[in-house]
């Protein structure tokens, strides 16, 4: 009888010990609740007939003209895809963002290829590094032209064929910095420097702004010919928000 009681007691004690240890282990690391970041998606459209984009003749630079022989290029001031989607529109949070200025961790490339800038329009965060690459067999002279007298300083650098990438960043917001090449007059692009997350619309006009915590924001969409439009957007926890923009062709 005594032995049986002792055995039962020991069993109960072991169970209790195991359970308590298990509970202690489960309490070992208490993580904070995951941030309920969400995203804002949408489409930018152009209403009306887009202005005629003029063809570019690169005959003074035969190496680049050869790249485009099969697909002639035009200016890219207004690029409209199927269904009226407007490309190269930068969408960002102009009001309401309280996070770090530099919210992205990538180092995008600004490429000079076939004597064109790829991408034609690039979104950037303040102090976000980007790399200027020359993949053409000819020299380029990259010349960004921020607002004179402003916190972003104008510079131009020659980049011969095969030169290493130029790694740099912009210290201040600016919508937008026009970039040209001093050697090839038809080259044109824009760098849009903002704070916080941003997205750039693609061929179909679709954009996505990632990493947006819940809150109320003013969303701005900027296009190089049509300027900026704003919209108020509320982002709920864990639920993606939608915002669409329509620009009118003049």
């Amino acid at each position, binding site marked *: 009888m005594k032995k049986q009681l002792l055995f039962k007691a020991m069993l109960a004690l072991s169970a209790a010990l195991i359970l308590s240890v298990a509970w202690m282990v489960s309490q070992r690391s208490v993580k904070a609740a995951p941030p309920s970041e969400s995203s804002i998606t949408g489409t930018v459209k152009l209403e009306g007939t887009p202005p005629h984009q*003029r063809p570019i003749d690169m*005959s*003074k630079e035969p190496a680049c003209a050869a790249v485009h022989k099969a697909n002639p290029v035009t200016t890219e001031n207004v690029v409209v895809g199927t269904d009226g989607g407007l490309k190269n529109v930068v969408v960002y949070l102009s009001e309401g963002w309280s996070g770090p200025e530099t919210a992205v961790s990538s180092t995008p490339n600004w490429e000079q290829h076939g004597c064109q800038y790829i991408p034609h329009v690039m979104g950037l965060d303040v102090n976000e590094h980007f790399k200027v690459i020359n993949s053409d067999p000819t020299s380029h002279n990259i010349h960004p032209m921020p607002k004179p007298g402003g916190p972003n300083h104008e510079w131009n650098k020659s980049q011969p064929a095969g030169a290493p990438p130029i790694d740099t960043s912009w210290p201040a917001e600016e919508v937008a910095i026009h970039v*040209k090449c*001093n*050697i090839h*007059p*038809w080259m*044109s692009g824009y760098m849009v420097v903002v704070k916080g997350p941003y997205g750039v619309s693609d061929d179909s006009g679709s954009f996505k702004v990632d990493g947006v915590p819940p809150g109320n924001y003013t969303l701005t969409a900027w296009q190089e010919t049509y300027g900026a439009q704003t919209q108020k957007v509320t982002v709920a926890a864990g639920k993606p928000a939608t915002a669409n923009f329509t620009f009118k062709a003049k």
Partner: protein
Amino acid sequence: MAKLFAVTIVVIAILSAIPIVRNTWHPMEDISTHGQAIDDQLSETMWEAGISFLASQIILAWFIWRFSGTKLGEKTKNFPGGAAGLVAAAFILVGLEVFALGIFGVKAWANIYFTQPAANAMPVQVQSGQFAFYFRYPGPDGKFGPLHPDLINEANQNIFGLDPDHDPESKDDIVTAEMAIPVNREVRLLMHAKDVSHSFYVPALRIHQDFVPGLDLQLHFTATKVGRYEIVCSQLCGLGHYNMRAYLSVLSQEDFDSWLKKQATLQ
């Protein structure tokens, strides 16, 4: 030693003259109607300078040879008239030579600059700007629309600063990055610079004219052979000067007409 030096001078002089006399490095074939006078001028200059060069080197070598063993203090012959005579002779000889070249060259210059273009010369405008040449044809109305420099926007391909919405004469203007002209047709080239000084140089056409910012310049010429030629900027204009060029196509009248039609559709 001095005699060896004298011989070396003569050898070098003769060796340098040989490729010039044999025309080893000759200029491009002349495809213009006015170029012959320029080529003749170049030829005459080379002959005059060449003969003077050979003569002076040989005379120098002879003097070195003749007086190489002379003892110090020995009297040498004096040039008649002394130093003054020598200077006067040099003055007259060189002066006559330069004067002669000037007289022969006047015709080459006048052919280009002091003659008026024919009444039916085809006008083409060229604008030079860092670092490309762009051209404008007046289109069917035969008139060039006005230029508005404040409207120049290369990103939009408005190179000349035209305002077709407000200037009817600009509506049919044809702007191109390549120049084409019909063969055997006189062309009147209207030139201006957008920014700094450049130069329009087509070696085969014997045309070489600087652009001076602020000046509107004119040239006229006729091309006599079909082909594709390079227009190079030959006035240092900045870091892209080495890359500043355009292509000139001399075409048959038919080919030119279809080229112009195609360019009109690309506006």
